[in-house]
């Protein structure tokens, strides 16, 4: 692939997969942070160091068994719109998009793996799958780490484990994140329960695009905070057996409550969402996310059958700023984008009905 804009013609595997836990768990992501021994961390690296680190890591990827599957994208000579596209697809962090200097990301075509080079650490590997697939994600990333470790020497300390630029990531360097869709808890005003449970279990709750982002459209990213003193498997198990079931249960209860006691209110929300999406002439990203969230909830609660999950997922992805502009081939300001977004959604939803 020569140009990341070609990505818009497809969809990452994680957005295609069947939903698990009644559509409440959207995706499972595991990230490992690594630094090369013998180099400073990035805040103390020269331009030349960064070039060298990048060359070493890219070289290791290409010479390993992984080589043929990856393509490497240099972010420093890429336009802001294309970088934003990668953020919207959850392939790089916002910080990585906005940073400066030699840096990039190695991607596989199905978008399940992204290896960020020269982000906060020299190497941040990510594996992303749809639904609740943490074991599979851990196996894959552990294997990737092994393969790269044959060719790279990572900074490691007997007591502190893998060393990272920020002391909050040391030890395993692992961050397990599960993206959850919790609209009913938001509607019943019980989302606070999630925050409290998260606090009890030493977890962080973030928005759709990770660190420093708001939870728009009822999507919450839940991830571990401590990385030292537990094994990777223990952290993954805790998510699989404790965290996800507990929060899923809260959402299920809230949905049951709404169905039993507020069925008219909840149906009204879902049908209003359809109405707005089908007929609006101008619509913002935030409103789109919120309405699509309600649509998704309606579908998962069995209230709808004339829209499918694939269409909803496609709309989530393609109505985002950079996607919209790249798909339509137009560079637009906010107001024009809102009109174009409404047009795009209307077309997709009416097409769908005719099919």
């Amino acid at each position, binding site marked *: 692939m020569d140009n990341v804009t070609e990505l818009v013609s497809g969809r990452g595997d994680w957005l295609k997969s069947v939903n698990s836990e009644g559509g409440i768990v959207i995706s499972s992501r595991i990230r490992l942070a690594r*630094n090369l*021994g013998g*180099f*400073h*961390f990035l*805040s*103390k690296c020269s331009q030349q160091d960064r070039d060298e680190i990048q060359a070493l890591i890219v070289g290791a990827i290409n010479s390993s068994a992984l080589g043929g599957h990856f393509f490497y994208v240099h972010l420093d000579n890429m336009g802001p719109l294309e970088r934003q596209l990668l953020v919207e697809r959850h392939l790089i962090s916002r910080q990585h998009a906005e940073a400066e200097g030699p840096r990039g990301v190695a991607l596989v075509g199905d978008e399940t793996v992204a290896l960020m080079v020269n982000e*906060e650490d020299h190497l941040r590997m990510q594996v992303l799958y749809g639904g609740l697939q943490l074991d599979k994600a851990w196996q894959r990333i*552990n294997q990737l*780490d*092994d393969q790269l*470790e*044959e060719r790279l*020497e*990572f*900074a*490691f*300390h*007997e*007591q*502190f*484990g*893998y*060393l990272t*630029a*920020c*002391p*909050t990531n*040391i*030890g*395993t360097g*692992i961050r397990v994140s599960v993206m959850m869709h919790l609209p009913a808890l938001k509607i019943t*005003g*019980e989302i*606070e*329960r999630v*925050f*409290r449970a*998260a*606090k009890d279990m*030493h977890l*962080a*709750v*973030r928005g759709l695009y990770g*660190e*420093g982002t708001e939870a728009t459209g009822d999507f919450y990213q839940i991830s571990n*905070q*401590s*990385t*030292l*003193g*537990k*094994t*990777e498997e223990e952290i993954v198990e805790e998510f699989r057996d404790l965290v996800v079931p507990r929060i899923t249960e809260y959402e299920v209860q809230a949905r049951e409550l709404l169905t039993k006691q507020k069925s008219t209110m909840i149906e009204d929300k879902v049908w209003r969402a359809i109405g707005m999406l089908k007929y609006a002439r101008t619509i913002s990203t935030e409103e789109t996310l919120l309405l699509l969230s309600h649509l998704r909830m309606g579908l998962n609660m069995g209230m709808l059958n004339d829209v499918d999950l694939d269409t909803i997922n496609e709309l989530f992805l393609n109505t985002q700023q950079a996607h919209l502009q790249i798909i339509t081939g137009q560079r637009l300001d906010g107001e024009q984008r809102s009109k174009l977004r409404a047009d795009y959604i209307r077309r997709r939803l009416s097409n769908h009905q005719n099919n």
Partner: protein
Amino acid sequence: MLCQKCKKHAATVHLTEILNSEKREKHLCEQCAAQEGLTDKAQQPINQLVAKFVLAQTEAKELSQITCPDCGMSFLQFRNGGLLGCPNDYEVFKQTLVGLLEKAHEGRTQHVGKIPGGRENKHKRQHELMKLRRDLQEAVNLEDYERAAALRDKVKGLEENG
């Protein structure tokens, strides 16, 4: 028990306050507790935790004098940026960092997860030796000298290979 404030919802947040040696109990529902700021809705980002904690630590002035000879990172710089400059900083600032690590990692300061390949062998060897020595002791205690001799040979072999 109903929430003391709104008297509508079940109280799920229970708080005991001691004010002027007078004990007071509060029983609130989630909403009222959130209103009173008793549950922090916005989770504290980990970076802020670092900044806060390190800030408190640095009140001991001499800390700010320490600088890593490898990368030139000073403790003050780390406090402001939240990021370290090189692996050696973990040794240079170790004493202060251990406190911070305890806070950030649920009181734990020893890595028990994955170990890089080469070191894993070393680690495995140490682990193996430990087990063999334990078995050896058991064999001696049981006066099973044949087994003990075999185990002793194994321990020797492993030690020499390392």
